[in-house]
């Protein structure tokens, strides 16, 4: 039975990703893995029987690690490649490690957000809880760009539902400039940890404030005061 997992000898670590098309990974016991607080279906010490794993016919009792515990590796790799130089290579192990780290990150943040919900006796984890948890756990640099992202997402959703109801020009928002049909942003150029290129969250679809003064509409823009004209050509698409 070909799992791709029998790499011969040394089962002192998990072989995490068998080459199968079913989306399941076969994990052979063999590591003295201790913790797992984040709910992975994972091999634990109770199924640890590493030495017996050397047979190549019927593998010993093994734990099936489902791929849906992780982000799809292709997506992870795609994001990595955006950061790395073109000539960079990534080992398969590193890809898997980062894949696991992402899931750990989600669990980590969610756990904290969930605790807050419980303290406040709420049942639903909201986006605000997630953002709060990130700030609390040290990911402050993410909070602002994520807030901007979330605001834009919400505006998009509002736009979809209200577009049919009234023209964009008459959203009831006092525009400081005559630009009302400005397209979204050209080249945002987002950098982790930097404010450059991060916009004052536009408070209305199709409009933005050149002087950075956020309007009240649309619910709490972010506080970023980066220049909105940075890298812009507002009419690049809407001629």
């Amino acid at each position, binding site marked *: 039975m070909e799992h791709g997992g029998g790499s011969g000898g040394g089962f002192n670590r998990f072989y995490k990703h068998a080459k199968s098309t079913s989306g399941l990974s076969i994990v052979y016991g063999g590591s003295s893995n201790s913790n797992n607080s984040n709910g992975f279906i994972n091999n634990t010490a109770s199924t640890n029987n590493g030495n017996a794993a050397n047979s190549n016919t019927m593998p010993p009792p093994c734990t099936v690690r489902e791929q849906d515990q*992780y982000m799809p590796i292709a997506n992870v790799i795609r994001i990595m490649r955006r950061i790395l130089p073109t000539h*960079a290579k990534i080992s398969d192990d590193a890809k898997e490690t980062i894949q696991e780290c992402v899931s750990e990150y989600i669990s980590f943040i969610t756990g904290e957000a969930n605790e807050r919900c419980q303290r406040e006796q709420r049942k639903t984890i909201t986006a605000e809880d*997630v953002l709060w948890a990130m700030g609390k756990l040290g990911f402050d640099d993410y909070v602002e760009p994520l807030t901007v992202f979330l605001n834009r*997402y919400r505006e998009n959703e509002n736009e979809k539902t209200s577009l049919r109801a009234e023209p964009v020009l008459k959203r009831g928002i006092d525009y400081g400039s005559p630009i009302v049909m400005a397209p*979204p942003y050209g080249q945002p150029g987002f950098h982790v940890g930097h404010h450059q290129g991060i916009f004052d969250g536009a408070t209305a679809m199709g409009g933005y404030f050149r002087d950075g003064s956020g309007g009240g509409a649309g619910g709490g823009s972010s506080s970023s005061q980066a220049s909105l004209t940075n890298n812009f050509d507002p009419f690049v698409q809407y001629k």
Partner: protein
Amino acid sequence: MRQAGTYSGIVWGGISGKTGPHLLPLARIKKIMKKSSEEVKMISGESPIVFSKACELFIKELTQRSWMVTIKGKTRTLSTEDVASAVLATDLFDFLVNLVSESAPAPLHPKPPN
């Protein structure tokens, strides 16, 4: 390193009326959130959306830090050990210390005092 296009696929896909595409699958994110704890009951629709972007930022930061380790070693292949080193060197990634020490077969150097 160019960042152009980072937002365009994710956020502005919605401008034209489409809902996507996010770089990371929302249903999968939701599943992982639910599995993080038995006490997680309900998740708002926006939470996975925030996470999809947050995970992207996270992957980028972790990758970038790992790559800094890689190039110090004058190789061009980012390895698990590089990821582990980056985790150990970054306080923010303390929650990953156990995870990376499980994956790495070789003992890792101790965390440098910060």
